[in-house]
């Protein structure tokens, strides 16, 4: 498959302030965030960036703080979401002097008894092929599948977020916007994590 190459991310520069981890918070709006049957992993402070004002409204991302309450590491290996038919697990990395985002090889691990933060400029659940733009305040359900076969899903809200645009020199908009070539190239991808080895390509 012809690779679109590294995806250049508009706003996700390293100057991005981390989204604060506010402790274990159940969003007031909507049902409890943690829907895992046995509560092995819960998510706090979850949100999805609204596509309002984004240059490319076909993609966005979900964030939050995953906490693993078991004594075994658990790895998110795939995800789905209610706003689009395609979901990927992404990381940010430095490549050829530019911050890029790309599928994270091996999924997103939540350490035993610990937490992993999904945030702009870091690990995130990438929501792709969004057909209907997501205005702020929209409810999105995200489901995660772990390496042990268990799943969890949570309902969360879209928020308008300027991302790191204020600090970004390139003049692109949308903290999570990617080149359009990446979006179209992605059609060959199915939902889920790219197999290791294709980590630097997106489609």
């Amino acid at each position, binding site marked *: 498959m012809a690779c679109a190459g590294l995806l250049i991310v508009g706003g996700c520069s390293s100057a991005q*302030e981390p*989204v*604060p981890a*506010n*402790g274990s*918070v159940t*969003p*007031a*709006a*909507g*049902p*409890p965030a943690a829907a895992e049957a046995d509560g092995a992993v819960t998510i706090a*402070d979850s*949100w999805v960036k*609204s596509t*309002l004002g984004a240059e490319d409204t076909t993609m966005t991302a979900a964030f939050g703080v995953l906490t693993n309450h078991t004594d075994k590491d658990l790895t998110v290996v795939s995800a789905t979401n209610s706003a689009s038919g395609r979901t990927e697990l992404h990381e940010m990395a430095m490549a050829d002097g530019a911050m890029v985002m790309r599928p994270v090889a091996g999924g997103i691990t939540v350490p035993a008894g610990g937490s992993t933060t999904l945030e702009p400029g870091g690990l995130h659940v990438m929501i792709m092929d969004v057909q209907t733009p997501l*205005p*702020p*305040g*929209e*409810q999105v359900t995200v489901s995660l599948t772990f390496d042990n076969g268990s799943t969890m899903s949570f309902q969360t*809200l879209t*928020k*308008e*977020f*300027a991302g790191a645009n204020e600090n970004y020199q390139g003049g692109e908009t949308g903290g999570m916007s990617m080149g359009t070539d990446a979006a179209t190239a992605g059609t060959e991808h199915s939902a889920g994590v790219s197999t290791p080895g294709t980590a630097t390509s997106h489609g």
Partner: protein
Amino acid sequence: MLFAAGSGVIGGAAAVAATATALAADRERSTIARVERDALLARSTFVGTGMEPAAGKHQSGVVTAPQAHSVFAAFDLREGVDAAAVGRLMRLLTDDITRVTSGRAALADTAAELAATPARLTVTVGFGPGLFARTGLTEQQPAGLVELPAFPKIDQLQDRWSGGDLLLHICADDAMVVAHTQRMLLKDTRAFAVPRWFQRGFRRAVGSGIPGSGDRNLMGQIDGTVNPATDTEFDAVVWDTGPGWFAGGTTMVLRRIRMDLDRWDELDRSAMEQVMGRHLDTGAPLSGSAEHEEPDLAALDFTGLKAIPDFAHLRLARGDGPARQILRRPYNYDDSPDADGASDVGQLFCSYQADIGRQFVPMQQRLAESDLLNKWTTPVGSAVFAILPGFEAGQWLGQGLLG
């Protein structure tokens, strides 16, 4: 270091000794400073960690003891924002409010540290008549929410301080908290609504007022003496008791009332007291000597005239039983003086009542007609809002209307 380089071994040693002495003195001073600071802290009341509940039958910020700082922020809905979109905004705001009032940052807050000390922060949300009209919800507009009639004898209303579809009323005992909260809420609101006016107000700092007494306003009067204060009174005066989606809500009348303090200054003290019907020093009615005693409206003074004159604010403002009273929760404002040096100060008169038409309007009509205070006060802004009922955990503001 420059001094060491130029001064040789001996000079350098002397400098080192001198530095050591200076350091010791510094350390002693800072120890003293620390001891003094600790003593001060032990005596002070730390207000930063104070919290008011977000969830409940009623929104906070209405019968809540007034915080020191406040902004009333009014917005107009953007073109095309329908009931569903307002619902989305309410879900976002409910989440924000739940977090910020408990000392947790709103999601995606890039200055989360500012949220750590809420200082009794409350955020109270209201809908103006325009919102009901523009979202096709006129049928559901609470009966208690009516536009005020004109009061031609007193009103000099300006558009820039009047009306509005949506109100966010933010109060806290720390102006930094109010400012940061305003910024965060603005970010979530602006996709749905454009700012119409923002009015900032303040009261006495925490610890500056007289406990158990009304706060003084910018005319120097004790203001807030006669006000509902118990849950029974709040139920009788403030809250909509249903049935319907609005049960637990109330209405707000906000009047920006400019005070002509320069002309007020021309009165002597006893004239000022006559205008109000109360003593300036104690706040007692002119018929008596204690702030909280019942005014005797029939009492005569030594000249045989009514102690509390017919034109007195107190006499005319008296609500006729709970069904006609209001809860007043005003803030002071102080803007830049005009080019001639006249102050632009006044009161953000803010009242809550279950029914504007039944409770507020007759009172304002009496005052507009014959309150002598009108000579020195001018309403320059006016707005009314339905203050939404509260929400329980897991619900969102306005869900009963929009859900």
